[in-house]
């Protein structure tokens, strides 16, 4: 099956004959190392967020997450992710396609440029937009004359978020598409398929897992970004504070329980994303095992 190229192991693959697999001891050792590490490094801190959040009772928790400023931060965070993530998905597919399926000059430059946001500090990612669109910046006077506000407002926050999340989808797809090569597309084309037809029926099914992981990673980063957004936000309460910024504000205002309550909201958003991903995997798996039986 075409889907087997992805890292996704099917049931069949994990049932290997005894003589080519590791001993049971090694297996359990590896599993327990992974579990203990995850428990200590991931689960425990996350659980402590919830413990701290409910420390002063459910009323404080509810008050914290229904506070108008918290709701506005939640709204802004979701809105920004909603713009940034689809934009990056489309750009990521286009860039990965161009890089892996065509030969052209400057390909390496394009790959390096895609990696750039990983290499620079998020604070710098914010600063560049201040330098470009700030009042003293390159386009500042023009923007001011036309009464357009970019930094310290929604557009700046979206731009900064897009900047830091650019590499995720493209970086997931490039190695995948390179490994797959162009044979399947060529075969489809020789059988008379047209451009979009090839994309929908061949390319997209082949890359769907990579794409999904890319989208999840970029969504997580978009909702959680602190540094870059902090620089361009202007910290206006109820207006340009995203959830991570709101958490810091509450923490600094001695409202520790409230700050962890809002933090738990952010954690739950992440968990929700993972649940959607798991559902998606499960559905597709179920269907492909049916197909195998057929």
């Amino acid at each position, binding site marked *: 099956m075409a889907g087997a190229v992805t890292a996704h192991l099917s049931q069949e693959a994990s049932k290997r004959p005894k003589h080519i697999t590791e001993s049971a001891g090694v297996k359990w050792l590896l599993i327990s190392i992974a579990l203990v590490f995850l428990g200590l490094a991931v689960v425990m801190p996350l659980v402590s967020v919830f413990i701290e959040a409910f420390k002063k009772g459910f009323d404080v928790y509810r008050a914290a997450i229904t506070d108008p400023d918290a709701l506005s931060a939640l709204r802004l965070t979701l809105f920004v992710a909603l713009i940034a993530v689809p934009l990056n998905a489309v750009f990521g597919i286009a860039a990965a396609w161009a890089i892996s399926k065509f030969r052209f000059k400057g390909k390496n430059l394009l790959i390096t440029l895609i990696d750039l946001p990983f290499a620079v500090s998020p604070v710098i990612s914010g600063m560049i937009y201040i330098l470009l669109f700030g*009042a003293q910046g390159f386009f500042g006077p023009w923007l001011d004359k036309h009464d357009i506000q970019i930094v310290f407002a929604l557009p700046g926050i979206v731009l900064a978020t897009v900047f830091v999340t650019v590499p995720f989808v493209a970086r997931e797809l490039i190695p995948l598409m390179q490994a797959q090569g162009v044979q399947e597309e060529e075969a489809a084309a020789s059988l008379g398929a047209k451009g979009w037809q090839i994309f929908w029926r061949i390319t997209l099914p082949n890359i*769907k897992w990579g794409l999904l992981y890319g989208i999840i990673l970029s969504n997580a980063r978009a909702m959680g970004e602190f540094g870059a957004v902090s620089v361009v936000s202007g910290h206006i309460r109820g207006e340009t504070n995203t959830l991570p910024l709101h958490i810091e504000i509450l923490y600094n205002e001695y409202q520790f329980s409230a700050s962890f309550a809002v933090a738990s909201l952010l954690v739950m958003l992440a968990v929700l994303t993972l649940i959607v991903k798991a559902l998606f995997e499960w559905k597709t798996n179920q269907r492909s095992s049916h197909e195998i039986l057929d």
Partner: protein
Amino acid sequence: MKRLAIVRSLVLILTFTLVLAACGANSNSNSNSNKNGNKEAAATNNAGTASEAPTDKPKPPVELLNVSYDPTRELYENYNKAFAKYWKDTTGQEVTIKQSHAGSGAQARAVIDGLKADVVTLALGYDIDALVEPGLINADWQTKFEHNSAPYTSTIVFLVRKGNPKGINDWSDLVKDGVEVITPNPKTSGGARWNYLAAWGYALKQNNNDEAKAQEFVKELYKHVPVLDSGARGATTTFVEKGIGDVLLAWENEAYLSVKELGPDKFDIVYPSLSILAEPPVAVVDKVADDRGTREVAEGYLKYLYSDEGQEIAAQNYYRPINETIAAKYKDQFKDLELITIDDFGGWKTAQEKHFNDGGIFDKIYTPGS
């Protein structure tokens, strides 16, 4: 059926996106109905889609942005409510005040870079002076309101752990062996500059105005600082939450607030023999107020800080009121002590250049990690 699978997966992604969008839209309408419809207009304006300027019509609801420094969060939260009520009662106009807080220097920088503040309420005059050159504020801003445009004052005190186990009673005790001092970075924090100057002033007085000895003392003091936070609130959190250090050099209002928020059983406030009179000033950002047509309400907003109610609110939030009658009412809260002023240092410009600019005395005496 491979194709069907893909279509379904796409539908699933799309649904997820739509659900997110719906969440956003829902909470949007919810919170807007809490406040007034004006917010909606402001939001579209900010999105950069509508390019027309906010309207100038008489008495439509108006929105102000007050860009302030770190420790005034609680003060302005209370004051904004009182002012909105006062303004509605006297003019019939609805006013919504938005707040932004961070380190004083950083906030001035943000306003220079285009943060559309109608008014600024910062930690020291130097940070407002910085707005003059880019043409945001007229040079005579300090004459616009009474008392050099400083409606409340504060000073620097010591916050120590309960029972004062290290016996810290004055500046000279800070450089004793084994005492760890928490104060933020004077390069970025307004409060930290006041801390530094108060220590300098004390050392000058002890040593008959011998500058070299004062520098020696302050250098020794910063050797006792294990960590320099970037803002006053960060330093407070380091001291009270993370439990680092024996004494926090803090704004009087920050010290009182910590005691109030975290319990009088944990900390004591110590007044040194001498401190500095901090005058956090306020100003209307002329360019923004004129562009947005908010000058009248912006001036009203700052002026009301001088009213009896404004002064009461300042005192309740542990800022020293300048109104004598109200100050007398709270005289138990604000201890009398010898206070030097920034004028003893030749004003902020001179002090800033001599002590805090790159290559100034602070750079010479402070080496990180020593």
